[in-house]
């Protein structure tokens, strides 16, 4: 019984501090990590970005990562998309009674490693233990603060006709990896999640051009959902070229078998970027130099007509309206 999380670990007494010391402090140690009620931080003047995100994923371990890595990437990427350098994170854990301690250890280690890579410090945390069956293994919420670069003025509202639409890598890996991990279809496909922290990538893009209109990370609803959101927010049309959308062979194979559209599978390390057509090549060249965007590509362009609609040109010359996101077909993947 020693090697699992118990209700006593969450009671606030000696066992709680033991858990925090042995698992979390050991991994998150940094000068700003607080032992008090709140972390006290010194911030430069300028604009701050501030966000929070909860993570529930089943299974909590998957090819290419675990919920710990995911919880850091999610918040780091949300900040990065605003053009904000991620500075500090707070993490809140809800752990199911009976959760293996060695797995918790692995999750914390993944968080440490990912935070380090993203250059962000975990400065505050909280741990609760819930009774058996009250949560599905483990939930993590991360909250983050970042400092906006002066040159950053991106928003889903700023897409303009004539912009190129760029995706920073092959799409749908995360959703596909989770589906396979969860359902044991017996499909022989080696799909790893694309889960990755993208601050470095975003920084390099902003170094390349200051005319970045939109950066969004395509998470739960996939690239398709992001495109519809932007078409709607900016009152523009988006025209995609189906043949240019990067999809890994394994992913398109799995999608074919399951009857799913890769554009609506979740990603956790892919950005959708809108820049003026003239800057597109330079941005793509930069992306190709970064570790998580080797197959970045221009997948379409913004049009003035058909505002709010996303149209896809297919291989045989059809111009299909991409189905609206939502509906009951897809299971909820986080």
């Amino acid at each position: 019984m020693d090697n699992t999380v118990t209700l006593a670990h969450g009671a606030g007494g000696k066992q709680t501090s033991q858990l925090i010391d042995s698992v979390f402090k050991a991994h998150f140690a940094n000068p700003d990590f607080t032992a008090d009620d709140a972390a006290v931080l010194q911030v430069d003047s300028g604009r701050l970005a501030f966000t929070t995100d909860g993570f529930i994923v089943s299974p909590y371990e998957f090819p290419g990562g675990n919920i710990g890595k995911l919880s850091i990437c999610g918040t780091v990427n949300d900040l990065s998309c605003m053009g904000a350098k991620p500075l500090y994170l707070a993490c809140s854990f809800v752990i199911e009674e009976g959760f293996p301690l060695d797995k918790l250890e692995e999750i914390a280690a993944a968080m440490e490693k990912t935070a380090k890579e993203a250059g962000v410090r975990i400065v505050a945390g909280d741990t609760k233990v819930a009774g058996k069956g009250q949560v599905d293994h483990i939930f993590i919420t991360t909250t983050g603060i970042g400092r906006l670069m002066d040159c950053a003025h991106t928003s889903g509202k700023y897409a303009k006709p004539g912009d190129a639409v760029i995706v920073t890598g092959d799409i749908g890996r995360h959703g596909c990896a989770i589906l396979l991990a969860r359902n044991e279809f017996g499909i022989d496909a080696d799909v790893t999640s694309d889960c990755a922290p993208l601050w470095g990538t975003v920084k390099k893009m902003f170094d390349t051009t200051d005319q970045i209109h939109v950066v969004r990370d395509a998470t739960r609803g996939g690239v398709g959902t992001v495109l519809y959101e932007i078409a709607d927010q900016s009152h523009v049309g988006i025209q995609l070229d189906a043949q240019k959308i990067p999809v890994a062979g394994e992913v398109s194979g799995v999608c074919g078998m399951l009857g799913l559209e890769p554009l609506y599978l979740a990603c956790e390390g892919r950005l959708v970027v809108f820049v003026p057509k003239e800057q597109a090549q330079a941005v793509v060249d930069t992306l190709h130099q970064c570790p998580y965007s080797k197959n970045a590509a221009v997948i379409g362009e913004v049009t003035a007509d058909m505002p709010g609609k996303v149209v896809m040109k297919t291989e045989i010359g059809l111009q299909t309206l991409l189905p609206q996101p939502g509906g009951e077909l897809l299971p909820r993947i986080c």
Partner: protein
Amino acid sequence: MKQKAEILSQRIRVFGVVQGVGFRPFVSRTARRVGITGSVTNKGSFVEIQAHGTKEALQAFLRCLRQDAPERSDILKIEVTASSALPESSFEIISSAKESSDIFVPPDIAVCKTCSKELFDKHNRRYLHPFINCTACGPRLTILDIMPYDRERTSMGKFPMCKKCEQEYTHPQTRRYDAQPVCCNDCGPQVYLMGRPERGADAIIQTRRAIMDGKIAAVKGIGGFHLCCDAKNETAVRRLRQLKHRPAKPFAVMFRDLSAAKENCCISPKQADILDGCQKPILLLDRKPESTLAKQTAPGNPRIGSMLPYAPLQLLLFTYPDGVAMTDSLIMTSGNVSGAPICKCDADAAAELSGFCDVILSHNRDILTRADDSVMDFLEDKPYMIRRSRGYAPLPFLLSAPLHGQVLGIGGELKNTFCIGKNSLFYPSAYVGDMADIRTVEALKESISRMETLLEASPQVVACDLHPKYNTVRMAEEMGLPVMRVQHHFAHIVSCLAENDCSDEVIGVSFDGTGYGTDGTIWGGEFLRASYGGFTRLGCIQPFLQVGGDASAREGWRIAVSMLHHLFPEDTPRRIQALGLCSAQQAQVVMRMADQNLNSVPSTSTGRLFDAVSAILGIRTSSTFEGEASCALEFSAEAYQKQHLRLSADSFSYSEPLLRSTQKGFVLCTDRLVGWLTQQRLAGEDTGKLAYAFHILLADMVCQGCRKIRQDTELSICALSGGVFQNRLLTGLCATRLRDAGFRVLLHSMVPPNDGGLALGQATAAMYLLNKERNDK
């Protein structure tokens, strides 16, 4: 002594296209010929005749009115009542007091026999004129801008008439009196090759040469461009398939004349009348074994979509004095990217067709409204419409109920047509196409506004489907009118009621691909208690899980695996392997998806049931075009039926129940049927026999379902609608069984049973609701 015959008086009202087509002079001529006195007058929405004569004379008169009506007229209904008007001594035309309020937009008419003769008469001044036409033939709807139909409001407006043409146009005694598109070799439009210098005769000769060199030509016709090549040149037809990304879907063939068609196809006298009539639709005809058409024309299909030339330019493609030895059969497929609207102008053709063809023969008479070729089958020796478009649209259907108001039925997502309803008249549009392509959506918007202008209509309500993801539904919502959602299968049944002008409550059997049900599942094998005013769902086929979303509509093996997984919990993989449905891995994926409810939705789609049976019987495991697998199943059954005429259900020793009752009504035991077919097939039974047994047993189930409803409700009229009833074998079997059981059976004839007919149903249902609301107030 012979007693003097009694003189009767009748008031005859004729509804339909009876204005501006020489109808009243015809009535007057006929009356005088058969000995009727009285008068004829134009009453606006109908022509009214006061007729006095003997019983025999009146009968002859009515018969002649129907049989000999002018070619351009179209009688929808004749209403006869006894009249108390006093007899008169002569027959007069009384000039009309009231102007027309109901509008009849004329459809396009195929080139007539007299014009065809003039076309090839060296001494006629319209010798070889590609645009020859007369009062009885030529384009109408496709060149019309706004009503009334006068030259300046057509795309002929920009071509001034020469002296001679004007003379004909203005003199009542000529064949071209008031023929709006009249023109000749000295005036009017011209043909040319796009992107090349050839014009007129040279353009036609070059195109003919290209075709005989095995090339593909795009040719501008009446309602849009066609892609064409020599239907006897295997290589050319195969190349067209590759370029158009259309591996197997049948191509239509245009034959030079009726005799060329007869060499290749079996044609009944009634079919010949339609094939060579004034609308010239594509008719689905049985191919003769000795036919020399390329195999690639319709691979694996025993039938040929056949038509005859209907535009003078098409006649010239076959026959021209240039010494080219021309084929007598051309592939004529619509000029578009499969799924996009047919191209109607040079810009479209340049953008979309230049990759598909070697030469583009165009002309400068603009097409204002697209009209694809109509497609027609025959059922019980009567026309059975598959696609109602050129030649028929937008002729209205008239309901006898007094209705008031204006509605728009926006149609469905595939094979879209829309329908405007004005009072008791319903005008279904020409074929628009599949809404998956954004250009089709735009074409729909454009056609709706053109038709609203032509018909002087401003709908108060727009009716659309229930499906949350249809583009047509979104369009309806964006129109700014009150939206009325009409359930898909109910709309099918209402379209059948409207076509048959039946305002009774009926048993509607709606067998279909897929439609969205009121419970959020997929429907398509429904028994509805229905009338114009609404419906209740009383039965359906056995629900199954439709696994894999849209992929399952293309890949029938998925449905088959899902059904077998449910039917035989033990030993499924072995059966699937023995049937050769798919790989072991594919089977496992589908079964896991069904178990986990991933991308799976409960469905009663009969179309998918057909696909599954086609896969289980080893006929087709998937489809490259809509209906491929289910048509192949029908063909296999028909081939078997032909060889074993006297088989009945008894010869299949089928002992499973046909139907079981449920809390809400009943379900057909189609799952048991699938199980039985599987066992029989695994036991080595003949595929064709099982395909036929499936049709017979399903028809038995349909009949059983209708009997059950009759027991509970005393309804005794059955209406059959939905895309599955394009299957002639099933429809015939169902109709026969139902009639034998004492039902009156309503079938489609001039409205397609498939989604092309939905709009009429939507518009009619909306009109009834509108009138009910008004009466309730």
